[in-house]
């Protein structure tokens, strides 16, 4: 990318900047400087991604140190990567601002900032890695730092959840690594493009695909491998929950899409794709029922993530209609990318709002939140808008995402997924309405713990971050085109038009 005549190495910068930030915040002891540096670097990262999208370059490729593919490590970004890098950069900026207030009077800040930037570096690496082993390193960076961030809450519940998350994460990584080892044995390369060119539908490829998929599914928490998600996402500090639900699970899903659609596509069968779709459909219902039964607000939001992740897996049966990607692959990927972005914005907004409620009320038991509408109007408003997007009501990003999904389902003649999508929306409405119902009843009787001494400006700053994300969710519903253009312009798997 050229800016003012200087060639900017976009991809290495996206990995290097967060790592630099991690070291900087580790060395600096002043809280003000730490948050300023984090905000500046988060802003810079967003700027780089926006500039990278604005330039006419269709896709990016970078060979680190000038070493070519079989031996060296490559970085590559296409439209799908850029879309995910953009949503990551936006959320990292907003969550960093929120954390500046959230951790402002706590000793946890010293540990939060370096681990947070390591997590960001891992996410960026996962989105642009062009090499199966580099992806493993990115997965471990994400997994280990996410576990450490969950444990930061310090409660017994959080430590148990973190330990369970760590074991599930390591198990997933090892399955993935064995898959990579089999791939290397069969094809003698780790570069995704070279693997894709040589891929054959033989038993060794199926074994590698199964192991890689199980590893990534464990990290994406698709039912029945979701057991670690609700406790981990519910007991982490609020900004961490937001990042985990909005970004971390999406990274492993993105890699799953890469492997299924771009690397292993000759080896994937319609049955396998439908199997993932069915698991996704069950996850939608299971997650919604879990959310309806949850006693705590953050647990409700965490179960909602299990359900929303289920929608993403409808990609596979829709894309592999008639076992070929040519007909509906592009449209399905576009719909699901849109869904990922809409869900990331809405779910981050929701967790940030839940964090606000938790900080200002001292608890988040849903049945004791009567009168919240008067006490925390801004946080509740954010929660409601995010809820509108999760349900999929117009005019929100969630509506467009579901509409695109329904379109592909009808076009490809798989009407049964339409029922799943609509029923999921209905169930989502039930648990969102449940929270709003309590919040608007008995306005004068809110239970607030006595020891809560939070300054007013701090909660307003935190609420503003959540609200910004919620407003972005709505704006996304008004301006849908650019994401589709971004995907359409540069993805190596798309040639035909997405927008009809």
């Amino acid at each position, binding site marked *: 990318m050229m800016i003012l005549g200087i060639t900017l190495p976009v991809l290495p910068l996206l990995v290097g900047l967060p790592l630099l930030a991690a070291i900087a915040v580790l060395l600096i002891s002043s809280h003000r400087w730490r948050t300023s540096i984090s905000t500046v670097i988060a802003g810079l990262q967003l700027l780089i991604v926006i500039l990278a999208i604005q330039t006419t370059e269709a896709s990016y490729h970078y060979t680190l140190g000038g070493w070519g593919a079989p031996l060296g490590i490559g970085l590559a970004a296409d439209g799908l990567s850029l879309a995910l890098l953009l949503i990551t950069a936006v959320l990292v900026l907003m969550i960093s601002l929120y954390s500046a207030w959230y951790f402002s009077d706590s000793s946890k800040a010293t540990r939060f900032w370096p681990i947070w930037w390591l997590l960001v570096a891992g996410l960026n690496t996962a989105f642009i890695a062009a090499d199966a082993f580099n992806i493993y*390193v990115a997965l*471990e960076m994400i997994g280990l730092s996410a576990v450490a961030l969950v444990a930061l809450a310090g409660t*017994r519940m959080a430590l148990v959840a*973190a330990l369970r998350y760590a*074991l599930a994460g*390591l198990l997933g990584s090892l399955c993935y690594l*064995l898959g990579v080892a089999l791939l290397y*044995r069969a094809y*003698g390369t780790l570069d995704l493009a070279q693997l894709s060119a040589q891929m054959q539908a033989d038993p060794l490829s199926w074994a590698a695909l199964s192991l890689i998929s199980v590893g990534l599914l464990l990290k994406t928490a698709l039912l029945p491998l979701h057991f670690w998600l609700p406790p981990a996402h519910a007991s982490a500090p609020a900004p961490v929950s937001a990042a985990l639900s909005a970004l971390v699970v999406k990274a492993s899903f993105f890699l799953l899409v890469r492997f299924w659609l771009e690397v292993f596509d000759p080896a994937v069968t319609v049955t396998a794709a439908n199997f993932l779709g069915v698991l996704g459909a069950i996850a939608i219902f299971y997650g919604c029922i879990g959310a309806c039964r949850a006693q705590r607000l953050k647990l409700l939001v965490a179960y909602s993530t299990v359900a929303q992740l289920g929608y993403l897996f409808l990609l596979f049966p829709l894309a592999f209609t008639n076992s070929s990607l040519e007909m509906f692959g592009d449209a399905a990927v576009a719909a699901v990318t849109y869904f990922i972005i809409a869900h990331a914005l809405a779910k981050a907004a929701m967790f940030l709002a839940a964090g606000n409620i938790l900080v200002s009320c001292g608890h988040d038991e849903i049945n004791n939140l009567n009168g919240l509408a008067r006490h925390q109007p801004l946080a509740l408003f954010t929660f409601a808008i995010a809820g509108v997007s999760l349900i999929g009501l117009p005019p929100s990003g969630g509506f467009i995402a579901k509409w695109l999904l329904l379109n592909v389902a009808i076009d490809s003649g798989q009407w049964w997924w339409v029922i799943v999508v609509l029923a999921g929306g209905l169930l989502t409405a039930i648990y969102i309405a449940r929270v709003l119902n309590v919040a608007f009843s008995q306005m004068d009787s809110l239970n607030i713990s006595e020891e809560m001494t939070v300054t007013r400006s701090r909660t307003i700053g935190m609420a503003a971050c959540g609200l910004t994300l919620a407003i972005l969710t709505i704006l996304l519903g008004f301006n849908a085109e650019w994401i589709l253009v971004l995907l359409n312009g540069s993805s190596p798997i798309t040639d035909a038009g997405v927008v009809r």
Partner: protein
Amino acid sequence: MTQDLLYSITGIVLFGIGLFGVIAAAHIIRKLIALNTMGIGVFMVLLAAARHGVVTDPVPHAMVLTGIVVAVAGTALCLWLALQLQLLDSPVPEEPP
């Protein structure tokens, strides 16, 4: 049976034993040992892949080295979490000066 095939199969068997251990064992230390056994199984498969061709391939060796570093870090993190939990349940009595 060639040597590298024997090593690969041994590695996969180790992976299976470890996987069983992670799922079946109740104690956290047992689970961690099982996870490390799985890791060693994967490393065996990688090392066998290095001898698959005519000349020894250095790339899997680099992967195993990275894998060992990650395994150490992951195990340490899990042990720290387990230790914190243990301390929450039964704090260590302070030693007299």
